[in-house]
Every structure is written in structure tokens, then in C-alpha cells.
């Protein structure tokens, strides 16, 4: 499939009926989604025949694109049941088999904001290197909904983290690292690049900035004064092949 065909297919993916400010819902624009997926597929082989998870999938444009490029299995996670309804309808429209799980990505991966990891669990996490057995809990001792390292590739267009949920972009990224065996693909404000590289290293992964994009976030919310906000965004890939399993 050519890039322009993928982009035009993704233009037919239905977007949020009424975006929710609190969840920072804005659709991944078809040209951004297409460019991201095409690069993953053509330059890195991270889609074809792979098990792909989509964190904060929204209306599932990234999952559908991945399925169109030949992923073997897709699962999308989102907290918003309205978005998941649209996502399921979109998947059916495109005849893609995509499973959807209604959950809070942050909580489901044991990354709740205020949880301080008990010391003995931190130590246990450091001393284990058995990646084959399922971990019942995350490194901070909170139970996990999804078994770690159960997917090949994780894709996401995470919330950028506004005043009310600062840092949520990093939490999503961390959740991706817990789930992916091979790679996590994500979009982040270019201004956070250094911080992400540092965190990525802490998680045992290597960050690569694959492309620099410009995001045209349309003024869909009332508090936006301008018609749209142009933001510099990095398309990044975290290599997870050497990351510990938890």
C-alpha cells in the first residue's frame, strides 16, 4: 500500500463526535497517522505480522492503519466508552479485527500517579530477570491489568499533558515500555525531547527521533483563542528489546 493510499483510507475513519477537553481528545490527523505508520512499517518492520497495542486509542485511527498494513493482531485501550463505540464501528467499517479494552491506561499498568513503590518490591524488581513468567504486579507493587511484554509493538498518540494532567504523556510512554517487547512508537512535543531521552534510558530503552512533524491541533475547544495551534512534534521510537520485563 502506498503512503497516499493509506492517508486517503484513514481520512474515512470517523473522529470523535464531541471531544472531551479533560481527556485531551483530538483526532490524529490522517497525514500524521499515515506518515507514522508508513515509517514503522517500511523502515522498521514494526507492523507486518506483529501484535500491536494502541494506548489511548480513541477512535482507533492508528490501529486501523496498522491493520491495513498487515499487523497480525490489534488491541486498543481507552478510558472513554464513547470513543470506543466509534472505534468499534470504525474497525467494523474497515473490516479489521481489532479488540478494544475499556480501561484507564495509567492505572491498568500500575502507574497511578501517587503510588510510591515499596522498597522490597523495588529490590525484587531489580533482582529478577525472568521475562517468561507473568508478573502479577508492577515495579511499584500495584496490580497490572495487562501482562507485561505481551505485545510486540505499542503505538500511541498520547495526551500531551496540559496543566491538569501534567506528565501523563510520560506515563503513557512508560506503560508502552511495560507492554512492548520490540518497540514503542509515540508522538511528543519537541520541547520535551531531552526529558524523554533521559526517561527512556532509565527504563532500559533507547530513544530515536525518527521524524520531526508539525501538529496542527484544530481549535476544537472553546478556550482556544486561535483557529488552530501549530506545535512542533517528534515522532519517536523506543527500542525495548533490552528493557527489563518490569
Amino acid at each position, binding site marked *: 500500500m502506498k503512503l497516499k493510499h493509506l492517508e486517503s483510507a484513514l481520512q474515512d475513519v470517523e473522529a470523535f463526535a464531541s471531544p472531551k477537553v479533560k481527556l485531551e481528545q483530538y483526532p490524529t490527523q490522517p497525514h500524521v497517522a499515515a506518515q507514522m505508520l508508513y515509517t514503522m512499517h517500511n523502515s522498521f518492520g514494526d507492523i507486518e*505480522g506483529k*501484535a500491536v497495542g494502541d494506548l489511548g486509542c480513541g477512535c482507533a485511527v492508528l490501529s486501523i492503519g496498522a491493520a491495513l498494513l498487515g499487523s*497480525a493482531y490489534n488491541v486498543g485501550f481507552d478510558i472513554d466508552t464513547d470513543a470506543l463505540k466509534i472505534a*468499534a464501528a470504525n474497525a467494523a467499517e474497515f473490516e479489521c479485527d481489532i479488540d478494544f479494552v*475499556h480501561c484507564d491506561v495509567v*492505572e*491498568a499498568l500500575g502507574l497511578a500517579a501517587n503510588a510510591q513503590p515499596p522498597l522490597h518490591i523495588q529490590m525484587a524488581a531489580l533482582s529478577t530477570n525472568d521475562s517468561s513468567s507473568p508478573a502479577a504486579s508492577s515495579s511499584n507493587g500495584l*496490580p*497490572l491489568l495487562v*501482562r507485561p511484554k505481551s505485545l510486540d509493538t505499542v503505538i500511541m498518540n498520547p495526551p500531551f499533558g496540559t496543566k491538569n494532567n501534567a506528565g501523563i504523556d510520560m506515563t503513557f510512554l512508560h506503560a508502552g515500555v511495560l507492554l512492548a517487547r520490540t518497540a514503542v512508537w509515540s508522538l511528543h512535543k519537541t520541547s520535551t525531547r531531552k526529558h524523554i531521552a533521559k526517561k527512556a534510558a532509565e527504563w532500559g530503552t533507547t530513544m530515536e527521533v525518527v521524524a520531526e512533524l508539525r501538529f496542527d491541533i484544530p481549535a476544537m475547544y472553546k478556550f482556544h483563542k486561535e483557529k488552530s495551534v501549530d506545535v512542533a512534534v517528534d515522532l519517536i521510537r523506543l527500542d525495548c528489546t533490552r528493557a527489563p520485563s518490569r
Partner: protein
Amino acid sequence: MRLLTHNLLQCHVKGCSTNNYPLRVEATNVVHKEADFNPEFITHMLQKIEWNALRTTASALGVAELPEILPLSMEGQEELLKQIHLVLMETHIMDGKLVCPGCSHEYLVTHGVGNMLLIEDEV
């Protein structure tokens, strides 16, 4: 929700971390939907799935009786791979609930979507 997805999920209620897997399926509607057979992918996924959980779930749902122990190599195991494909990729839990064996928490599945969201005091 396909059984592959079911195989990845465990109960995450606060304090429930020992006997929290696999979630018992109490389905009111399970459908079979044909999917492309990809033997390489099935072989690849066998490294990630929990075999015993898959086997007991498939048996409980009456979908298939999978062998207790997998052959060391899947080479030439076309029939077995097809059977695993049917279980993992073609069996959809459409409606029902997933029940934690440890704490008995019930997660609802509606129109194929699992609601794994916990309310505040369960987190």
C-alpha cells in the same frame, strides 16, 4: 474480545495479586469469526501466551481440547497450529463476564468490549 486478548488480561483490583489469573469466562454469547491463518504469527505468539490458561479457557468454553504439553518445535504441526488459531484468533467473547478466581470481581463484556475499568475504591 478474542481469547488472545483474554489471555493477556488479569484482575487488577487493589490487593488482588496472587490468584488473579486467568479470568473465568461466563459468557452468554461467544461467536466464531473466520480470520486469516498466519502460522508464523501463531508460533511467535506461543512465546507470549500462557498455555495453561488458554487450554483451560478453550476447554471450559467448549471451543477446543488443546494438548497439555506443546511439542518442542511447532514445525510440521499444521493441524495443531490451526486449532490454536481457531482458539486465539477466531473465538470472540461478545457478551458475558470475566470473573476473577481470587477476589470474584466481575468485569463485564458488552458487544465484544471488555470493561476493565475499576471504580475508585477498587483501585
